[in-house]
Each structure stands twice: as structure tokens, then as C-alpha cells.
């Protein structure tokens, strides 16, 4: 085949899928944004009504509870997952004998779908079936662990289940980071007489702080998009106390058949993601500029 055709095929192989995938996402996002400004209910209509859908959605109790929950869940989930992941990574980094096996075991929860996680945890946390009942059966009758059925504590059960699933992922990233620390630095710290705790705190962790940022951003956008975990674990309940933005979008669009308001809720969700990711994008550009200058 002549060289020109080879190059053309390469271009096609790159650009066609890229354009289709990107165009798909961009076009549908644009369409949803357009629908959010229309009075669509069961089927899309295309008349302009301005910000009425947004005002309506933001006034519903559903939405307000969802965004308060998002802040609680976001902070709790990211903090707990990062802490657990870091702890596991540091422990695994100590050159234990069964490291490969242990690493695989800790990564297993990530392979389980969120629906399965939610369902199994809903059984474990159910006061009449799970951990509380087990404690009562062994004789500790004063034990109470009924967060799942308390409206103001149910959100913490989500954090627990989510952290269980995500800790393995955070651990994998941190482990890679810990392994990539320059051994000269470690040896220098050892010569200076630093114990393991101080070595970690003063030498290792500061070196891997870009990984912290990466883990933070990935987990945060995980948290904002959470849908199946909540559906399986609490169904949005008890009542509507564990609603999250993704559920609000689903509720408006499909349960209530109000496409206009559902699209408005979806655009608001997109905006909240942009609020998280835009600073990260700026930070990456800033770092690159710093490195170029250095």
C-alpha cells in the first residue's frame, strides 16, 4: 500500500472514533442544556421559558436535601477513603510476605458493582438482620447500630459502604506513589536518624502530594455521580433523607416525567462537577508552567 493511504488510514482510525465519542457527549450535553430551558414534560418541546425550571428545581425539598447530603457525603467519603487507602498502602509498603495476595484482596471490592455493595451493606446494616442483631445475639444487648433507619444518620452508612469500595483504589494509587519515592531520599533520612514515623511524615508524604490531589479529584467526582449505591443501599430513604443529586435528576426525568426540570437538575449537577474540576485543571496548568520555568 502506498505511504499516503497508510497515513490516511491512521488519521481515520484516530479521528473518526474521537469525533464520534466527543461529538456524542458534547451534542447531548448541549441538547440537555437546551431542554432545561423548555417546559418539556413527557416529551421534549422547544419553546423558551428561561430559568423557571431552575428556580422550581432549586426550591424543592428533594434538591436542597440532596445538595446538603452531597457536601456531607463528598467530604466524608473522600476523607475516609483517602485515610483508609493511605493506611493500607503504608502497611503494605512494609515489605510483608504475602503482599501480592493482600493487595489483590484489598482491590477486590472495587471489582464489585455498586449495586451489589449497596445491597449487601443494606443487609449488614439493617438493625433486625445484620450487625446489630449479631451483637444482640452474642449477648451485648445494649449495642445499637441502626444508622440505616435514622433519617439524620443514614447518610453515614453511605460513606461507610462507599469507603469500603473505594479504599482499594486509593490504596493502589498510594502504593504506586510510595514505591516511586527516591531511595536516596529515604537513605538520607535514615542516616540522619529519622524513625519510620518521621520519615513518612516529613519525607515520603510531602513527596507524593500530587498523588493526593489526583486521588482527591477522582474520588470527588465519584461522589458527585453516585447513584447506584444510594439506590441499592437506602433507596433515597428513610423518607427522602439520603437523596443525592443524581437521584434527583433520575426522579425528575423518569419517575415524574418532567424532562425540563430533570434537565435543569442535570445541568446543575454538571456545574457542580465543573466547580470541582476547573480548579484542578488550573492547578495542573500552573504546575506545568512552574516546571517549565524551573
Amino acid at each position: 500500500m502506498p505511504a499516503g493511504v497508510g497515513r490516511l488510514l491512521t488519521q481515520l482510525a484516530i479521528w473518526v472514533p474521537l469525533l464520534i465519542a466527543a461529538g456524542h457527549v458534547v451534542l447531548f450535553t448541549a441538547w440537555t442544556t437546551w431542554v432545561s430551558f423548555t417546559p418539556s414534560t413527557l416529551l421534549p418541546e422547544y419553546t423558551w421559558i428561561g430559568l423557571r425550571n431552575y428556580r422550581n428545581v432549586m426550591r424543592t425539598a428533594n434538591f436542597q436535601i440532596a445538595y446538603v447530603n452531597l457536601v456531607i457525603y463528598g467530604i466524608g467519603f473522600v476523607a475516609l477513603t483517602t485515610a483508609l487507602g493511605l493506611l493500607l498502602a503504608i502497611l503494605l509498603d512494609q515489605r510483608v510476605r504475602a503482599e501480592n495476595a493482600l493487595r489483590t484482596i484489598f482491590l477486590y471490592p472495587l471489582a464489585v458493582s455498586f449495586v451489589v455493595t449497596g445491597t449487601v451493606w443494606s443487609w449488614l446494616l439493617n438493625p433486625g438482620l445484620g450487625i446489630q442483631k449479631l451483637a444482640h445475639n452474642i449477648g451485648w444487648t445494649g449495642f445499637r447500630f441502626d444508622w440505616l433507619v435514622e433519617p439524620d444518620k443514614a447518610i453515614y452508612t453511605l460513606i461507610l459502604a462507599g469507603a469500603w469500595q473505594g479504599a482499594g483504589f486509593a490504596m493502589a494509587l498510594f502504593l504506586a506513589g510510595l514505591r516511586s519515592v527516591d531511595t536516596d531520599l529515604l537513605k538520607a533520612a535514615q542516616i540522619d536518624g529519622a524513625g519510620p514515623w518521621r520519615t513518612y511524615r516529613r519525607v515520603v508524604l510531602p513527596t507524593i502530594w500530587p498523588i493526593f490531589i489526583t486521588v482527591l479529584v477522582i474520588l470527588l467526582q465519584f461522589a458527585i455521580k453516585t447513584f447506584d449505591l444510594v439506590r441499592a443501599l437506602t433507596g433515597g430513604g428513610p423518607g427522602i433523607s439520603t437523596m443525592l443529586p443524581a437521584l434527583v435528576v433520575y426522579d425528575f426525568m423518569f419517575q415524574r416525567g418532567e424532562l425540563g426540570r430533570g434537565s435543569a437538575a442535570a445541568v446543575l449537577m454538571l456545574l457542580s462537577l465543573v466547580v470541582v474540576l476547573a480548579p484542578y485543571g488550573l492547578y495542573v496548568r500552573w504546575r506545568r508552567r512552574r516546571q517549565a520555568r524551573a
Partner: protein
Amino acid sequence: MPHPTRRRLLAGSAALVAAPAIARAQTAGAVKPRVTVISQWSAGSDGAAITALGKVFEQHGGIWQHNPVPGFTTEMMNKLRAEILAGDPPAISQLKGPEIAAWSKIAPTVDITPWVKEAGFETKVPVELAKSCQPAGHWVALPLQVYRINTLFLSTKGMERAKLTKAPTTWAEFNEAAAKMKAAGMIPLANGGIRWDDGMKFEIALAGIDPDVYRRAIMQLDTDALKSKQVLAAFEQTRRFADWMNPNIAAQSWPVNLPAFMKGDMGMVLMGGWAQGNLLRAGATPADFSSGPAPQDSGPPCFDLNADCFMFWKQKAADLQAGQKLFAGIVMQPTVEEMYSKITGSIPARTDVDLTAEGFTDGQRNSAQNLRNAIAEKRVVLSLAHNMAQPNGITAAMIDVLTEYVHNSTITAAEGQKRLINAVESAQ
């Protein structure tokens, strides 16, 4: 045998491709009625009933193609919307209440008024039901079965354990009976914790207190009615219900309580008539439970109505059109409605079906008599939680408030009433 040359291979495959066309051309004259149906009835007594209906359809010479969508009604509606958008709606779909009016605006439907008149069906169904099937003045849907929402089921063993002898008929008696059950160590009220279940408890309370206020507040969304003291009393009664439910229930579907109910650890269930179907399929015998109208504070028991209808979507294919006509004829027959109701525990939409026949329980007979009386005295109301009284958007907003109220005991009845009024205003 001579080895196949390329020419012979080509000729042979061309013949194979042409063969079905020849066969089709031969049978083009005969049109076998066919019908594509979607519904939410994939399992349990509902699934068994629609399968039996399909068999009747096939016995009459039709081809039955039913695609159930498991889940609550909204999942089925999503699939229906997707098919309508694709330009290929099913011939028949399950729909109910105000959704029939809303959906009939988005895709063409079949005017089945001539078939209804021919069968003399119009005079045989309750007026509210007939109106909901005629959104633009002509029939586009057919009602199949009716359920009474405000039904009280009592566990026989539970009643013995709490030493109760008669079913409560007013809310005061109900509260006393529940208190006795609690004192006997039972859980007085079985509930699931799913949204529509919570909303249903409120509507049973309000309908039992005053069906006229229910009609004005819930069906007509009159603000004065929503602010009335009857609605406040209904919220207070719902708070009592919430206190008597199992505290460990966390968003499970209510049939998980059935084994406990049959054993006598749970005393009462406030649920629609389909619970009878659930109970019998779970292994209960009619001696294990008794059912009757939910408590009514004044006047004869009202009838909180939930009905399932089949909607007819305009089709181009001749066999689907023939199938729709055949299906309509079958569904309007009293024998078919009788068979359907025997399996699901509902009462037929036709008020002239004789329920003294074998296969119906006393609960169903009582319910049917209740419906006839309520029609005569204008005490029929439409269910909120089951999407009969209001379209989805308003229903969902109100149920949000009700389900939050049931699960959060810090919300007072007055606060709950205020939130309900706000939800109704902002959802319109």
C-alpha cells in the same frame, strides 16, 4: 452427485432467499390478529393473571406478544416513552388514571368507542373510571380491574394474641386495637417503607376521616381543603401509624412482612385488595387472615379506587389492528374479567359480574358490594399514591413530603401539613 459449481450455489441461495417471500405472498390474504403488549406485571399473581389473559387471547386465534417491564409503573412508562419516540408503540399498554389523558396527547390512539358501544360496556363501569378512559370525549382505553385501597387486613393469630374479637371500624377503635397489640408484644402495623406505601397510609387515614375533604384536597388540590383540620387529623393519625410500624424497616417492599403477619407477630396491614393475592401466593389460607374496609369515622365506608386500564395505540399493521379489536372484545367480557380478578384478588371493572361464584373470597365480595354502595352514595375517591388522582409530577411532590413525614418523627403534624401545601403549590 456433481460437485456444486459456483453458478449452482448462486442459484440455490437465490431460491432460498426468495422462498419466504413466496410463502408470505401465499398467506397475505389471511391476517392473524396479533397484539404487542407491555405492562409492569412480570411476576406474582399479576404475572399469572396476564399470562392467563394471553392464553384466552390465543384460544380465540390471536398471537400474544407480552413484554413485561419489572418494577413499579414508572419503569413501564419509561419503556413506553422510548417506544413511542422510536415511532413504534406497542398495540396495547397498561396505563391508568390521569396518565391516560397526559399520554394520549403525545401519540395517536385508537378510538374504540364503536367497540365499547357495541358491547354495551359503557353503562357497566363506575363513572370516574369511564371518565378517565375518555380524555377527549371518546374511549381510548379499557378498564380491567379495580382495587380498593382502603382495606384493612387482620391476622387471625394476631387478633387471638391481642385478645381482640372484632375488626375496628373507626380510627379510635383502630388506635385502641393497635395499643393492645403493642402491649401484647406484637408489631401492630406492617409496612414496607417504600414511598408509595407511606403515601398510601396517609390517604387511607384522610379518606377514612372524611372522603369529601379528600376529594377537595387531594383530587382537586383546593388550598382551603388542604389547610383544613381534617387534613391535620390525618397527619396526626399517620404519625400514630408510623409509631406502630416496625422500626427496623428500611425501604423494603412490604411483602417481606407476610411471614410475620401470618404467624401473628404483626397484627394489621393497611393495603389495597391485591394484598389478598400476595397472601395466598405466600402460602396463607383464607383462615389465616380477615379483610374488610379500613376504618371510617363517619358514614358508610368510602371506596378509595385504584384501577388498571389498557390503552390502545394507533397501529399501521393490519394484523395489529385486528389484534386490538379482538383484545378489546375479550377484555370487555364478564367471564374474562371474572377469571382475571380471581387470580389477582381484585374486583372486576364491570359492576354486573356475579361474585358469588367459587374462587372469590369474602373479602372480594365485600369490596364489590362496597363499590356498588359507594357509587350510589358518591363516596368513591381516587388514590393518590397509586397515580389515580393526580399526574406523576404532583403525586411525586406530595409523596416526597409524606414519606419524609412518616420516617422522620421530629416533623410535627402541623409542619407536615404546611410542607404538603408548599409542595402542591410549587409542583403546579
